[in-house]
């Protein structure tokens, strides 16, 4: 089973040279720590920055320079600032190559729910609806089950949706899964996790074809 950092590490293997990438809050943010050597990836922060760098050193925090999670950050050489309309303009126009975000539920047809639990939690969708409606390639980073042990990979989402038919791939603590027209296709299993366990913890249709390799971190 993978921990949060290992999920991020596995997702980082999907990055390609020259990619512009938007990383959501939580596990997705950790992906920045594992960008493979030898490739250049430019991180977009939807509040208005391309070329996001690491967190600042103590004493170098700048209140005017934050990421979409409101954390203090830095810029890298070649970075650019812009307003929020242009930021979502480049997202809507498909200029951002990859979006990585978290989810509460994903359904077998690629619907995603991530912003609201009726009667319990109302924080808002932020930029998630814009991102999932437009991104060419969306990877969801999530735990396979909720704290009660119930599957978060469902036939149909129960919670209010963030977007429809948009998730392309899921990297969970148990598996790497591709979302296809016929449901979840199991691509890889986490070290020490069996196909049976993944099957048991996936409520939606899970397609298992041939030998399923163990993930290579």
């Amino acid at each position, binding site marked *: 089973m993978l921990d949060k950092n290992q999920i991020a590490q596995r997702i980082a293997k999907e990055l390609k040279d020259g990619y512009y990438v938007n990383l959501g809050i939580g596990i997705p943010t950790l992906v920045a720590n594992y960008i493979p050597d030898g490739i250049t990836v430019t991180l977009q922060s939807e509040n208005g920055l391309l070329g996001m760098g690491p967190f600042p*050193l103590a004493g170098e925090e700048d209140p005017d320079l*934050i990421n979409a999670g409101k954390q*203090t950050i830095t810029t890298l050489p070649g970075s650019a600032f812009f307003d*929020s309309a242009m930021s979502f303009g480049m997202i*809507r126009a498909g200029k951002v190559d990859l979006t990585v975000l978290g989810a509460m539920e994903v359904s077998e047809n690629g619907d995603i729910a991530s912003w609201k639990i009726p009667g319990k939690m109302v924080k808002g*969708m932020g930029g998630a*609806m814009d991102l999932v409606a437009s991104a060419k390639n969306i990877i969801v980073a999530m735990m396979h089950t909720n704290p009660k042990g119930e599957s978060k990979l469902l036939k149909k989402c129960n919670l209010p949706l963030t977007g429809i038919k948009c998730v392309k791939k899921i990297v969970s603590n148990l598996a790497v899964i591709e979302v296809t027209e016929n449901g979840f296709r199991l691509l890889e299993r986490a070290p020490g996790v069996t196909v049976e366990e993944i099957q048991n913890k996936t409520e939606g249709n899970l397609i298992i074809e041939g030998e399923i390799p163990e993930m290579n971190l």
Partner: protein
Amino acid sequence: MNKVFKNADEAIHDIGNGSIIMLGGFGLCGIPENCIAALVKKEVKELTCISNNAGVDDFGIGLLLKKKQLKKMIASYVGENAEFERQLLTGELEVELIPQGTLATRCMASGYGMPAIFTPAGVGTEVAEGKESRVFNGKEYLMEYAFESDFALVKAWKGDTAGNLIYKETARNFNPLMAMAGKITIAEVEELVEAGQLNPNEIHTPGIYVHRIFKGSVYEKRIEQRTIRQVAN
């Protein structure tokens, strides 16, 4: 025509009960701190606020919430604010949540003189309920109307007496968009100079959109999530 005001109190003098106001900023970054303080002091009520976030419990729009000065909040993300959640769940506060890109672009459309935009954000979700949609090139888009406000309150880094504005880093965010969407736009700046002293090549918001400008007396610039890295060995 003189656009320069002495301070926040004078610049917001005619914002009355029931006004619809936009406030620039993302989180606590680039918010019009001095205008918010003046609104708290003026005790105007029944405000409708359009802003990406609702501040935190004791700063930003949170200060207006605490004094129960808001009737309605239109935002994209309102986490990080317990008082907000309380007022929302008890029904004291009316809330409309809209996607961040839609919020930004609806403000932009207003300043560009376009009555509506089409966006795929929210298609198939509860955001789409009751809205017109149209298919372009096989993909569905929602029609969203341009936003206009009675007053737009924005924060810039530098401004001149003609109302031209320059923003700093990610404190730009919603500020230039909301600056275009106010019937009356009030800009507060850290540095106010005479017209001619800013480089015209570097202006983000042309002064035509700005009706009033003043130099903010104090900027706390509170950091919401202070995150640092350790020095590598």
